[in-house]
């Protein structure tokens, strides 16, 4: 357990010191939201309608970027071997990397939500629920992304395979999250949004357990 936190902390530290990844994700969010707002605006109707989609595409790409980096950095510096040669089983690497990403992505997601609210005329009264949706969706996304990034870290064609493999697992999550977000923004009663949350939760649990169980196996190969 302690190792998980330490790894996440170390990666956060590296990311904060490097800044490159963080900044490029932020810049991507900003540019994406800005351009889409421009393309769809200035009327409120289409802007609002498109907002959940735009927000989720931005988040999905942001997390793919970070997930890739989480392992690419290790491979680049050659330090992945060191991680592989630590004693004991390897789940903690998975959880550490996952935690690292969640710690980075949650604030980023909140930020993206605020930016989207500003640019797309979104009501933020249900901000908390929106954030809950974001958290659930991001967790589902990230759990798979981390797994695949680890699986592919040492393979050659990784940049091709990652989007393909990841995407197919993640689209359902994104779809459910978009629906939940849309529901919240349209002011549907929470009871109608809840099934989407349940669905997201199911995805999260399934992906997390499956990935955590499979991760040590594939890292050994």
């Amino acid at each position, binding site marked *: 357990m302690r190792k998980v936190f330490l790894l996440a902390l170390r990666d956060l*530290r590296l990311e904060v*010191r490097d800044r490159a990844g963080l900044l490029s994700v932020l810049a991507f969010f900003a540019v994406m939201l800005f351009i889409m707002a421009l393309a769809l605006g200035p009327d409120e109707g289409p802007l609002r309608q498109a907002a959940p989609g735009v927000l989720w595409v931005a988040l999905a790409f942001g997390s793919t970027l970070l997930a890739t980096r989480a392992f690419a950095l290790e491979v680049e*510096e*050659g330090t992945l071997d060191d*991680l*592989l040669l630590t004693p004991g089983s390897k789940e903690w690497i998975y959880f550490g990397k996952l935690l690292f990403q969640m710690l980075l992505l949650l604030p980023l997601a909140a930020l993206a939500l605020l930016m989207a609210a500003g640019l797309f005329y979104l009501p933020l009264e249900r901000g908390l629920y929106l954030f809950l949706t974001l958290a659930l969706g991001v967790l589902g996304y990230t759990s798979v992304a981390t797994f695949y990034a680890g699986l592919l870290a040492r393979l050659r064609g990784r940049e091709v395979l990652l989007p393909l493999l990841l995407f197919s697992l993640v689209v359902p999550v994104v779809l459910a999250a978009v629906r939940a977000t849309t529901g919240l923004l349209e002011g549907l009663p929470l009871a109608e949004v809840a099934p989407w949350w349940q669905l997201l939760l199911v995805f999260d649990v399934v992906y997390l357990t499956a990935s955590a169980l499979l991760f040590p196996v594939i890292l050994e*190969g």
Partner: protein
Amino acid sequence: MLVRLEAIGKRFGRDWVFRNLSFRLEKGEVVALLGPNGSGKTTLLRLMAGLLKPTRGRVVREGQALFLPNPPAFHRHLTAREHLLYDLAFHGREGDWREALRRFRLPEDLPLAAFSSGMRKRLALARLHLLRPDLWLLDEPETALDREGRDLLTALLGEARQEAGVVLATHDRGLALAVADRALELEGA
């Protein structure tokens, strides 16, 4: 027995680096791995560490192995102290990192990106010194070190011999003669 290679062969694409190699390392041994460029020393070390799989045959390992690549690999944005602390934590070990830094004459708070090549090598040695693995796999550990650094290396290898086994790949036959009990010589292609 720390590591045993049972008739292993390793192939990259269609070229065999070696076809049939058996080897056994006991605790307390220091073995030099010699051979011309491209003869497979680095490959063999990675096989022993379990970072590569043999194409044929079997590698049996007991205890904790550490592999020191050349040049050593570190996270550029950490300082020496931080790196050692994380390493200790990940390996679940305790150790006096202050003493290690002092012994290997390393600055505490300089990010590793600013280290010279010899300082990186020293840090790698300090790391081994702290983590004290059972099996030390060293790829050209003497390069980039100055005279004092080499003395530190020799002393460290002496300590390693007490409680562990060492395989070290090198082109420096002087070093091999000085520290190794026996040598494994690979032939070139």
